């Protein structure tokens, strides 16, 4: 019996057993192990793994050799991703709070409880999701909230993650997501890291770049940072700046390009216009002249920038030398350093501006590229638009024409979709944690695939407070008893990763697909089923929003002329619900030239980058470099570069001026240290998955506070001592690690946020960017006191 036949018979057997296993063209078998492709569950890099399944359980992982993103290599999290399914405390039953206990209930009861919360107060019902929603999951939730319950109260944790990158792209190009892609890393001569530590956070991309050196290629790495990290160890130039002063550094580069005349005059004249905030600040801003722009940048001399940022004037000149040299290819990378910033939109726009001004744009290797932290921050949040103001495909609820387009596709009566955006994340949780009579008009939040009780800033005020208020009801769908699950009133056990079908979209516009490979434990069920089951219950209860204009169920699905009753769980796997939802969603993607191919194309590929455009021979072609004529089919012939979604409708991108301004909270006599939070290579986000993987847990079992050696010496703190960290919002005891995984600059400390037993977000600031509403987790003022010496003996 050939391997393929064995695989096919095993697949058939599996399908017969669970009615779940869908045939995959990539599945292959050897020695009793069936291997199939899936994107990794963790970060936004979007590596593909090969998952080995034996007797219904994941037993091994390999890097996928055919994946362009990772070319067979993974990071330590990716190699251990299969273990994330098997933590001993997986949630397996729906549970309802009775006093201090969560008691098991049936799925039918759970779905009914949710539906009744909606019926009781539709306006006060919200969904809070994440960039870990698969595309179909996010699309179903989006449609339920925007078209069904129609209150627009849906927002994702991605608001905490890449909202400023979105506003930066919108303000500059008029449309979201990077123009370049990972191929830039194979061609760039210079890579500038803007407050970014890819050696730990996007290790596979970092190796893709750094391994070029092993092949004898020259790659200049410049690390603009507030902390010496593992990435710094590879850098040619480490430029340490004072927190929040990255705006001054960007302006310093622009200043020198203008002063020396080394900016790209031709590119700027053909493709750019200039913008600044007017008296009434808007995301689009007000036009300014080139002379005005130049005059405003005049103040940012290298010496002035040195004074503000602490980066030596010579380093600013070095950056300007590089950007002024058009024979080089320069790629900028950034992630949370620029996004979790009260001036996040501004610094994003300024970095795009430096690239546009210097003409380092639109050629392979020449690109400003933002990285994402979640597997589908782009695919689900940004493209499906699961934000309080968003509609699928880059449309927004505030635009009359956009609402009409969405109503058309969803077959809704005109006026169903509301024009008023829902609350953004911080506002949503603030209202949930405020008594009704004091304006707390959100009384139920359904959380899926995220852990806000650990990841929101100032969690005391935004989450914990709601637990003492009558009438507030927290529903959480998750796979493990996270901090949020412990606070919930109703808990729904979810299927994760290869326990369900899925699609996600990574940082480089790549849409990826996988099939269910194993069964979820106990009564755990996919989030998309949970959402659709609630929608159907609402339909059965006669909620009018659950019908389209012809009176059919909002999620009506037919096969061979018969309605598919997928809301009954034993019928859910009769059809591929993911495919049905995706094919409907796909119609939205044409409006902003984010074209997606049919589902079946993604089944075959290790992902494809949009716009994916059908060719005359009916094949589908992906686009690597957007806005560049040589690759993007939507650029007019002869234009070279065209920004076809320009905010000014003339094909031009906007080069912004934003001044440097001091942050909302700075260290002072009482709270003399900067606190920066972030991640480590072993753990992903709140650690709900990685902290349950022994290999990752052993390598980094606990959070810590990283202290600069000089500060530690002065305060007589040694590694292992317990230190109390206190901000104006909360305090926390943490073990100290002097110059640990990184070295913060003197006067600053660093704490990773993965550890639910040491919740650093009780200290962080909820101050946020005025446009993106993204909070700043990277800067607040704390004081540091030594509480106790090291508990254990030094080893």
């Amino acid at each position, binding site marked *: 019996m050939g391997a393929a*036949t064995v695989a*096919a018979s095993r*697949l058939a057997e599996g399908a017969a057993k669970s009615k779940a296993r*869908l045939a995959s*063209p*990539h599945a292959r078998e*050897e*020695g009793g192990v069936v291997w199939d492709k899936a994107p990794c569950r963790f970060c936004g890099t979007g590596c593909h793994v*090969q998952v*080995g399944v*034996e007797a219904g359980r994941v*037993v*091994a992982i*390999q*890097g996928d050799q055919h994946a362009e993103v990772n070319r*067979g290599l993974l990071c*330590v999290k990716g*190699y*251990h991703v*299969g*273990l994330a*399914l*098997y933590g*001993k405390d997986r949630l397996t039953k729906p549970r309802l709070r009775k006093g201090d206990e969560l008691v098991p209930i049936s799925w039918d009861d759970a779905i009914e409880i949710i539906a009744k919360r909606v019926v009781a107060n539709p306006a006060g019902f919200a969904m809070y999701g994440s960039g870990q929603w698969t595309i179909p999951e996010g699309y179903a939730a989006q449609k339920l909230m925007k078209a069904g319950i129609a209150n627009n109260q849906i927002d994702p944790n991605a608001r905490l993650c890449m909202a400023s990158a979105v506003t930066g792209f919108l303000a500059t190009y008029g449309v979201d997501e990077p123009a370049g892609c990972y191929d830039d890393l194979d061609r760039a001569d210079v890579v500038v890291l803007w407050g970014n530590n890819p050696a730990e956070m996007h*290790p*596979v991309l*970092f*190796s893709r770049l*750094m*391994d070029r050196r092993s092949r004898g290629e020259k790659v200049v790495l410049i690390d603009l940072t507030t902390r*010496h990290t*593992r990435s710094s*160890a*590879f850098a040619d130039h480490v430029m340490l700046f004072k927190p929040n002063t990255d705006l001054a550094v960007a302006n310093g580069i622009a200043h020198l390009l203008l002063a020396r005349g080394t900016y790209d005059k031709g590119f700027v004249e053909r493709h750019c216009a200039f913008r600044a905030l007017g008296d009434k600040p808007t995301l689009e801003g007000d036009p300014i002249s080139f002379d005005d722009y130049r005059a405003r940048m005049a103040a940012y001399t290298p010496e002035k920038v040195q004074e503000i940022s602490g980066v030596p004037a010579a380093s600013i000149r070095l950056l300007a030398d590089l950007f002024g040299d058009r024979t080089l290819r320069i790629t900028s990378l950034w992630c949370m350093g620029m996004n979790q910033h009260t001036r996040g939109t501004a610094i994003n726009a300024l970095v795009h501006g430096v690239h546009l001004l210097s003409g380092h744009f639109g050629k392979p290797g020449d690109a400003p590229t933002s990285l994402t932290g979640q597997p589908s921050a782009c695919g689900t949040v940004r493209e499906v638009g699961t934000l309080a103001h968003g509609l699928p495909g880059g449309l927004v609820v505030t635009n009359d024409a956009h609402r009409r387009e969405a109503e058309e596709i969803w077959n809704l009566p005109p006026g169903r979709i509301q024009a008023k955006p829902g609350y953004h994340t911080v506002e949503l949780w603030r209202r949930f944690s405020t008594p009704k009579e004091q304006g707390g008009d959100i009384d139920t939040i359904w959380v899926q695939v995220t852990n806000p009780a650990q990841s929101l800033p100032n969690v005391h005020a935004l989450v914990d407070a709601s637990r003492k208020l009558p009438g507030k009801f927290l529903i959480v769908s998750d796979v493990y008893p996270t901090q949020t699950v412990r606070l919930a009133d109703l808990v729904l056990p979810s299927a994760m990763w290869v326990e369900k079908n899925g699609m996600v979209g990574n940082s480089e516009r790549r849409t990826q697909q996988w099939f269910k490979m194993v069964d979820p434990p106990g009564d755990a069920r996919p989030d998309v089923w949970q959402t659709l089951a609630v929608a159907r219950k609402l339909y059965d209860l006669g909620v009018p929003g659950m019908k389209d204009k012809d009176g059919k169920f909002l999620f009506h699905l037919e096969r061979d002329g018969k309605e598919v009753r997928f809301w009954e769980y034993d019928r859910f796997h009769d*059809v*591929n619900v993911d*495919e049905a939802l995706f094919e409907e969603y796909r119609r939205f993607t044409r409006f902003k030239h984010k074209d997606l191919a049919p589902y*079946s194309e993604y089944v075959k590929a290790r992902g494809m980058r949009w716009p994916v455009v059908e060719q005359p021979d009916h094949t589908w072609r992906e686009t690597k470099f957007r806005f560049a004529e040589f690759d993007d089919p939507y650029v007019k012939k002869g234009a070279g570069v065209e920004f076809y979604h320009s905010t000014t409708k003339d094909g031009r991108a906007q080069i912004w001026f934003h001044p440097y301004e001091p942050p909302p909270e700075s260290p002072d006599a009482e709270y003399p240290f900067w606190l920066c939070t972030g991640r480590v*290579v072993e753990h992903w986000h709140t650690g709900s998955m990685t*902290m*349950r993987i*022994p*290999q990752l847990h*052993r*390598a*980094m*079992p*606990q959070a*810590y506070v990283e202290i600069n050696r000089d500060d530690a010496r002065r305060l007589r703190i040694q*590694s*292992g001592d317990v230190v109390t960290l206190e901000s104006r919002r909360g305090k926390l005891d943490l073990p100290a*690690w*002097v110059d*640990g*995984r*990184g070295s913060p600059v003197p006067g600053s400390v660093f704490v990773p946020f993965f550890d639910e037993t040491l919740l650093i977000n009780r200290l962080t600031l909820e101050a946020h960017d005025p446009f993106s509403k993204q909070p700043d987790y990277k800067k607040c003022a704390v004081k540091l006191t030594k509480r106790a010496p090291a*508990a*254990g003996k*030094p*080893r």
Partner: protein
Amino acid sequence: MTADGSEGAARRVAHVAAALALGLAFVGFLRGVRDTGLHVSAPRPAPAVSYAPAPGYAELRQVQRGPNARLYDAAFPALSRDLPSAHDEVRQTKEDREAAVGARARRRAYDGAPPTIPHAVDQQRQPPCLACHGSGAKVAGKVATRMSHARHDNCLQCHVVDSDPRPGAPRVAAPDNGFVGLASPTRGARAYDGAPPTIPHSTLMREQCGSCHGVAGLHGMRSTHAHRQSCTQCHAPSATLDQREITGAAGPAGWSPVP
């Protein structure tokens, strides 16, 4: 007498001269050993450059390799001389093989997982892993295996330590996880008695067979003929495990697009 007298005077002069010389030498000695701080010229200005303070004793364990690393770097080639010869005769029992497979499993979540690091490493800078793992070394029964794959510079991307890297950290129990990893295969398939076995595992990230099967490998896994270099001349890898499957647009037999 005169003669005696003049002789005595000369001797006296000589004694006085000798006493004077001794005295001067003594004073000179005293001056020499005395603190001459008062007499040195004005202190030199401090050099313009500042030096990082030397690490304290408590911090020494964190400083992995100081400026003297090159002094002991030279010792590595000598250490690797402990390795057996590739021509040594190898005799293995079933128990040896099981012991070797068991030893591998202790450091890996499943066969093919990147092994964890059983010793401390620099957590911030790039540790010099290749000093030992570049060619393999053996010291007093402990083996630093040769890297099994092509060079990647960010070693800590895939390999992590197997105990808390933070000095003075309390022990925290590892989480309970029910994952059962794919076991390492014990033997490849043979077409007939005496035929060279096929390679029973993936060769991805394991293309350097000598890493495990060479002279620095665990005894139970050592090749009986480690001097031979071209392993795949006789031992065939698996196209399936090495992801060399051929899939057309329509997919292999048995697959049909989802309706």
